[in-house]
């Protein structure tokens, strides 16, 4: 059986890739994709801890499912915002959407 640490290393790698994407990509859609990656890295962690902990206690799985639901809702709102911004300003580049500065 694959040891728990492998899953954790995999999850950390996935999280770091997601974080890098969020910080480095210019496209807002791509930033959202990065966020999805980070969320799913967390999900891998949750599932792994459940499997290697008390199997009868299904809190880990339930939590993972809640994260799916929240992620789906978040993406739909996030994409809607991106589309709205694109219609008004003709761009999806995050650096150009800087109305909230001083």
């Amino acid at each position, binding site marked *: 059986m694959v040891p728990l640490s492998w899953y954790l290393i995999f999850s950390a790698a996935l999280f770091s890739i997601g*974080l890098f994407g*969020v*910080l*480095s990509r210019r496209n807002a859609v791509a*930033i959202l994709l990065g966020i999805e990656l980070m969320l799913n890295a967390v999900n891998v962690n949750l599932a792994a801890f459940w499997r290697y902990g008390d199997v009868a206690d299904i809190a880990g799985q339930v939590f993972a499912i809640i994260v799916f639901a929240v992620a789906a809702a978040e993406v739909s709102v996030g994409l809607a915002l991106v589309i709205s911004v694109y219609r008004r300003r003709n761009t999806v580049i*995050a*650096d150009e*959407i*800087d*109305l*909230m*500065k*001083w």
Partner: protein
Amino acid sequence: MRTELLIWLIPLPPVLAFFLIVIFTNKSKALSHTIAVGGALLSWLGSMIVFVRALGVEHLGEHPFESSIPWLPTGDTWFRIGVLVDPLTAVTLFFVAWTVLMIFLYSVGYHNFGQPAGDHDHAGLPPHGATVDEHGHKHVVPSIEPMYSRFFAFIGLFAFGMFTLVVSDNLLTLFVGWEIMGLCSYLLIGFWYGKPSARDAAVKAFMTTRIGDVFMLLGIAYLYSVTGTLTFREIFNEEILHTLQSVPSGVLNFSAAGLIGLLLFIGTVGKSAQFPLHVWLPDAMEGPTPVSAMIHAATMVSAGVYAVIRMFPIISLDERTMAVVAFIGAFTALFAATIAVAQNDIKRVLAYSTISQLGFMIAALGIGAYVAAVFHLITHAFFKALLFLGSGSVIHGMEHGVLHTGDHKVDPQDMFNMGGLKSKMPITFWTFLIGGFALSGFPLITAGFWSKDEILADAFGHGHPLIFATLAIAAFMTAFYTMRQITLTFLGEPRTKEAEHAHETPWTMTTPLVILSFFAVTYGWVGIPEHFPLLGGLVPNWLHEFVGGTLAEHPETLEFNWIPLLTSLIVALGGLTLGYIVYRDVNSPAEDKLQIGFLKNKYYFDEIYAVVFIKPITWFAENIVYKFLDQGVIDGILHLFGPATQGLGDTVRNYFDLPVINRFFGDGSADVTYWFGGKLRAIQTGRIQQYFTLALIVFIALGAALYFLVLA
């Protein structure tokens, strides 16, 4: 209905009538007087039932109708109030109920019910008459009183006070009734408040009686502090009376009983207008005549005498108090009679006569003639109410004449403007004659003779020759001025056009006259002394037996003596004859030999009081209290507060509020925030990824710090 419950209910109908009229029916004159007269009728009915039942009880004095409820908690015990009907209450209730009912009925006619509203009448002024068009020519007829409903409301409240006072079983509720009547007296004397003289008279009456009331309240308080109770039947047992007699009061060597008796008596001096507080009663004639008849002749001033009669067991404990009572009474009787001789206003003569007759009662009480005092109280209430109502009827008839001629300068109350009214107003004349003869003590027939004779007989029999002589002279003058009044008013020829056109008043006014004249004659027959020659013993001396039973020791029957009887015969008949002889030809004040300035101006008592009391008090109030105390001291202190507070406020503002609160905390915090914001705004780029990076760096730094500082 149980008698005790009935007694509780007696005072209530008039006060209900008062509230009904004030709140609901004051717009409707007919409804208002129906309610008021109906209330008086109910009280009358209750009083009569109680009276008849009281007659049926043997030894009512020892076993009176009584009932009480706990009212005020006083520590461990209760102060109880209740009702009591003993013989004294029963006979008082009898005359009060009759006179009150008669006067309520009379008021309907007196205030011209059924007549049109006046042409230019104002609330607060007597009605001036209305013009009506009849068969093509114009008439002036009497007009209805503008404040008709208010009058009936007031007299309803008054009747409540009187009935409360009579049925009370303790001094406190008696005092409550007493004060309600004082208020109503004030309101009704000032009923025509548009007249300055009525306003002054109302204030004068209120203030003067207040002097007496303060002393009375002191007496009540002292009595309560000594005995711990105010209920009559508890006070009048031997033990408590003995305590009262033996406890020294510390004032002029009086025992507690003597001082309490004196204080309560001063209350009566105010209420019953005895010397030296008599000055208010003549001025009180400014009120409408039914008010004069009810309040200032039959009931309220009688209540003063009733109170001393009630407290007789205490007052009689101290000889000096009794001497004071007897002296004040006898002196007032003579003194007021001398003034009455020189008065020309028909109501003022009666007012002084009332003062004088109340003096008779007080004097009778002062010499221990308990039954005689009660007897005269009752007969006087009947015949004096009759006389006042009669005088009201005369004035009413004269006002009719004044309206006919239209000469408003003629005073309808001045007896020298009258004359010959006998044929114009026959019912008024005959009833007034009966009342006048009762007042004079016309022998054998009238009630006044029997009661006055009993007082004189008691004064003589108990060895008070001085008081006997004083009262005999006063009785002579009473007969004299009464005949003067009758002669000037009714006999001879009309002296003015107005008197020629006077005519008889409506049935609502004459019926009470007839009923009251019935009592003015017959009430004397229940008190004929047993040993009186010929008549004595024909009718049992019911009054003596019945009323005497109120006292613990039944007063003994006096032996008959010819001297007081002959005296009262001579003074009554002599006074009447002399009055007729002197005044049958007198037609103007100038011909009247007795218009002496000294008497006419009432011994200048008003002027003396003005100089001795009113002027100094006014000066004191104006200069000391108002100018010095109020404007100088009080206002001065108040005016200091303003600048002081303002100075303090300025200091706080300049040295604390402006520099510390505003500058340091207020502006200072804003400045700091502004400076800090200015520095921080460099990082507000609006670029989401820079924020993320910053957050990540802070997160890592914090994490590292936590890890190395806390966990490691």
